[in-house]
């Protein structure tokens, strides 16, 4: 069930993209989402798609991963597109009109653009998570949050919570699966019956999960203290992020992309 989610998983690999600095990857992904909104005609979208596909090819990750990444969200995307097509302000040639529903040329074009934006954003963020181990990602977030220390934001603590949370996601998933099976063996039907029965069936799953999380947190805190953890301030780092020339090149390619987009923009 949960295993179908591709989004947020890491596929080990040995490509240019895999070896990039996670800070560069994270920032550039956000930047990419930003510049998608520059595009407003078909030329710009073609350029964006070409750029994304090039990046995917460089990562060496199979296409099917990206297609699977879009699949769980396809209904949301289609719903949004449909809303856009049916209810957007009329413009250009009107093909169909009934009450508040209008299908116009402009609406259709906007629908297609929105679809493209969704797919591009999902492709790029899937690329980020597929090629970056979660721990590197949390290192990158820690680094990027660092300026907030000036306003007394607890950067180390947040980074620690983030990396612990990431580390325990798969463990908790396993645990959930295990407890679900144990309760199923005791006659619980998950996901059957009416909404109240379904909610009641969740209780024998949630309570053990909470209890085990509390126990785990206590054990982990004890183990951390026993190993001399006294807080984030003044610690040295084992994983050191290194900005390399490939990261600079990647950044430059995004700058070039932006220039091209602005130039082609209608």
């Amino acid at each position: 069930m949960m295993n179908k989610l591709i989004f947020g998983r890491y596929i080990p690999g040995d490509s240019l993209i895999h070896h990039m600095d996670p800070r560069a990857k994270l920032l550039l992904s956000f930047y990419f989402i930003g510049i998608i909104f520059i595009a407003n005609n078909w030329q710009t979208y073609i350029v964006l798609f070409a750029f994304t596909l090039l990046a995917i090819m460089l990562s060496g990750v199979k296409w099917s991963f990206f297609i699977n990444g879009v699949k769980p969200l396809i209904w949301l995307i289609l719903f949004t597109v449909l809303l856009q097509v049916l209810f957007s302000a009329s413009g250009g040639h009107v093909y169909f009109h009934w009450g508040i529903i209008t299908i116009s040329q402009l609406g259709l074009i906007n629908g297609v653009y929105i679809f493209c934006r969704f797919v591009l954003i999902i492709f790029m963020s899937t690329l980020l998570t597929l090629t970056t181990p979660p721990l590197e990602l949390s290192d990158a977030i820690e680094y990027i949050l660092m300026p907030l220390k000036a306003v007394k934001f607890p950067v180390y603590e947040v980074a620690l919570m983030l990396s612990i949370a990431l580390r325990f996601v798969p463990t908790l998933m396993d645990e959930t699966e295990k407890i679900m099976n144990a309760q199923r063996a005791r006659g619980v039907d998950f996901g059957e019956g009416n909404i109240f029965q379904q909610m009641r069936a969740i209780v024998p799953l949630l309570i053990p999960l909470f209890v085990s999380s509390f126990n785990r947190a206590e054990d982990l805190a004890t183990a951390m203290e026993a190993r001399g953890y006294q807080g984030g301030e003044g610690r040295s780092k084992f994983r050191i992020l290194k900005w390399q020339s490939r990261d600079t090149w990647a950044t430059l390619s995004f700058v070039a992309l932006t220039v091209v987009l602005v130039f082609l923009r209608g």
Partner: protein
Amino acid sequence: MAIEFKQVDFTYQPGTPFETKALADINVTIPTGSYTALIGHTGSGKSTLLQHLNALLKPTSGTVLIGDREITPATSNKDLKSLRRKVGIVFQFPESQLFEETVAKDIAFGPQNFGVSEADALKTAADMLDLVGLPATLLDRSPFDLSGGQMRRVAIAGVLAMQPQVLVLDEPTAGLDPQGRLDMMEMFAQLRHDQDLTVVLVTHQMDDVANYADHVIVMDQGRVVKTGTPRDVFQDPEWLLKHQLGLPKTTAFARQLVQKGLHFDQLPLTEDELAADLVAQLPASAFGGGSTDDE
């Protein structure tokens, strides 16, 4: 109730990039009333096989016959309850499945799911608590106040309360102290005797296999590589080592004795057997010598 596997394959997440094959061409029968031990290296597919025993997982291809129910890849998820009642599974570290406010309610939870009335279920709960060797005073306590060993027993009582015909145990004694371990294994042996249970035990403890089981299934890399009595399986130490398995302590010791020149017709499995074999081989004078006919 017998459980039969016919050409069962199982693949996790088929059709995705994370697809992994866990079981391949399993053909094996767990006879009615047997005490079957399922052994194998970690990751050999034991737990996957175990989840087929009450249709928590359905085969990707092939058939599992549970009693007279046939489980195929096409079997629907509805109407499996009657099956789950007959096959009780005690998972590894079952204490993590406790959730009710009181021990009594938690034990009664299983039977109630299968339609037993609350009053009857609570009565069963009291009996079951006694069966697993805990005092009745615990009935109204919260399961989370108990010690680890007590929680384990309560969880097992919760499965026994469903009165299954087949009891599946996935490393029931993992993490227990030696006394707790022995108590629990004796309890299962007694239960099997009293209630005519079919028991399936997944374990890494070869001593338990030698002492209790009468049927052994050896798995390696998702395949069944050997079935037979414990005696059949433990007669070939080299073969076991090749499949990353060990010997019972007694058998290992007997093997050392063989290297020192003693001879056994068959390697002994239990301490009693070893003692009997040794007595037969020792010169009579070794017993503090009344007779002197060996001069």
